[in-house]
């Protein structure tokens, strides 16, 4: 996860076309930060973006397009897919499509809130550890190590279980569990940026620690953070489904993909459709985020070059 060279002012660029004043340079830097979107070469990333756009559209407008109450027991029970109920009905005669649409809203909400928590907490921890180094770094990273000593889902189950089984608590639990990953990546990226001369010059010019962190470090770790946010949105959605499946997330009768999958288990022999659609929804959305993350990594990590499904070698 290296910062992109492009962010560092290069003399050759700065002298192009005569003298460039500070304002123009700022505008140029801002433009170049978005320029990566023009470098899209990985078809997988586009597929991922398409899946996610579709999912967001379903969550936002699904209810308007398919105006059926997800909780109303209006139909016959355990119907197979038909024109009236495109995805069939469940064990209480509720429309599965309406419940899947509601589940899309639930999973998106949980994903955004949980990743939001981890993004803020992890960035603060990582910035502090990477900037101050020494004892601050050692202490914070020990806490992070300790959190990594428990398998993610186990920690989430314990936190969500002790807080009490509600969706709000599931979001908090997932947020806490993925925070260490954010902290570690941010710290690594910060340490790398800290090595560039512009940090030293900022400090020599009298910038405070806070200013260096906000004005100089934060903008330069955007690339790895963007990839991290994308992939962890998928992870958070998967975790919410797992917690709801275990009865520790969204509580019935409210529809959630994990909860639907859990209640379908009793009807596996009678109606297989019930266990297929919610699982498919989870898998496709998580796949979308992983595809998009893969595409973003491609354009943001210059070491890899364009390739599908590649991973950086860890050393």
């Amino acid at each position, binding site marked *: 996860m290296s910062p992109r060279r492009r962010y560092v002012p290069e003399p050759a660029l700065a002298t192009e076309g005569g003298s460039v004043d500070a304002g123009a340079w700022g505008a140029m830097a801002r433009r170049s930060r978005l320029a990566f979107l023009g470098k899209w070469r990985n078809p*997988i990333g586009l597929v991922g973006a398409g899946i996610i756009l579709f999912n967001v559209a379903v969550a936002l407008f699904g209810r308007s397009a398919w105006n059926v109450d997800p909780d109303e027991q209006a139909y016959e029970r355990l119907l197979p897919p038909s024109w009236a109920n495109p995805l069939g009905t469940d064990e209480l005669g509720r429309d599965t499509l309406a419940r899947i649409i509601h589940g899309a809203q639930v999973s998106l909400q949980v994903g955004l809130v949980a990743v939001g928590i981890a993004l803020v907490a992890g960035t603060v921890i990582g910035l502090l550890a990477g900037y101050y180094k020494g004892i601050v770094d050692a202490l914070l990273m*020990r*806490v992070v*190590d*300790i*959190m990594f*000593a*428990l*398998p*993610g*889902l*186990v920690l989430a*189950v*314990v*936190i969500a*279980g*002790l*807080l*009490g089984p509600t969706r709000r608590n599931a979001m908090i639990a997932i947020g806490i569990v993925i925070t260490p990953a954010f902290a570690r990546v941010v710290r690594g990226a910060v340490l790398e940026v800290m090595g560039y001369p512009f940090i030293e010059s900022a400090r020599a010019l009298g910038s405070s620690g806070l200013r260096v962190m906000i004005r100089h470090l934060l903008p330069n770790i955007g690339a790895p953070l963007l990839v991290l946010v994308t992939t962890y949105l*998928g992870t958070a959605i*998967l975790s919410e*489904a*797992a917690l709801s*499946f*275990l*009865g*520790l997330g969204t509580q019935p009768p409210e529809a959630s993909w994990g909860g639907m*999958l859990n209640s*379908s*288990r009793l009807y*596996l*022999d009678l109606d*297989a459709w019930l*266990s*297929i659609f*919610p*699982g498919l929804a*989870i*898998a496709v959305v*998580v*796949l979308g985020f*992983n*595809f998009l993350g*893969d595409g973003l990594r491609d354009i943001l990590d210059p070491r890899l070059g364009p*390739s*599908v*499904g*590649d*991973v*950086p*070698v*860890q*050393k």
Partner: protein
Amino acid sequence: MIGYIIKRTLLLVPTLFGVSVGIFLMVRLLPGDIIDILLGGDITATEEVKQEAREQLGLTGSYPEQYWNWISGAVQGDFGDSLRNAEPVSAILRDSLPITLELVFLGLLFAVVVGVPLGVISAIRRDSARDYAARVAGLVGVSIPNFWLATLLLLFTSKVFGWVPPLTYVSPFDDPLENLSQFILPSLAISVFTLAIVMRMVRATMLEVLGQDYVRTARAKGVGKNKVVYRHALRNALIPVITIVGFEVGVLMSGAAIVEIIFGLPGVGNQLLQAIFNRDYPMIQATTLVIAVIFIGFNLIVDVLYGILDPRITAV
């Protein structure tokens, strides 16, 4: 080498201490008075009854005192009694631990046995159709929820073969075949994620190693293609892969926790979840600690293995 092993082991002490304190505090600091919940809002309960319950749970005294009582017992294998049936927690763990470990072991075995060759093929046939298929499959593999996969596997075997695995746990010492038939579906379900990770990692490290000078030298002096791949390259390519295996054990344990419930296996994950719903605090503390210790232990083994395979590590 021995010095290295001792050093790695000693480094675990602060981690284990931190983890146990973390678990201890988590159970106590998260909102909700344990005693009120346990007595189920019984308003007739007198202060004496509550005090008695607190003493029984080891919840009296200062935190350091409570911690010391808990951890000194835990080190000797005494985790107190389960609140649900007054059975010693250690006895429950002794029965449930082998089940989870078997699941994790089978899952890991499958992931490595299938994942490594797929990664090698993907690397030596770089950018071929097969390589692309494997890479996309790798991304699909990390996206499928293991609990859905487990459900689908059950659905598939019951619809196609009319077969479902035995519903009550069979010990491998009583009937190894029956035991295996019971564990095959859940361990397959949890291994897919790890398989995909292993495959992608092997592919990446193989590509790196195949580009190195000694591989070209071996080819130039006339060593056969297969021998170069499997003897010269794969050996070095596998070293970094070993490091992710330690982490994957955690992933597999998370997976085991959830598929144990689907398949009705009384493993540690199943016990933990029951304990959570029953607010069985001694049980929650003990299972979480044991899971952490296993995870940390696996990572120690991985570290040591890494040191043996790559002497540069131990030299530092």
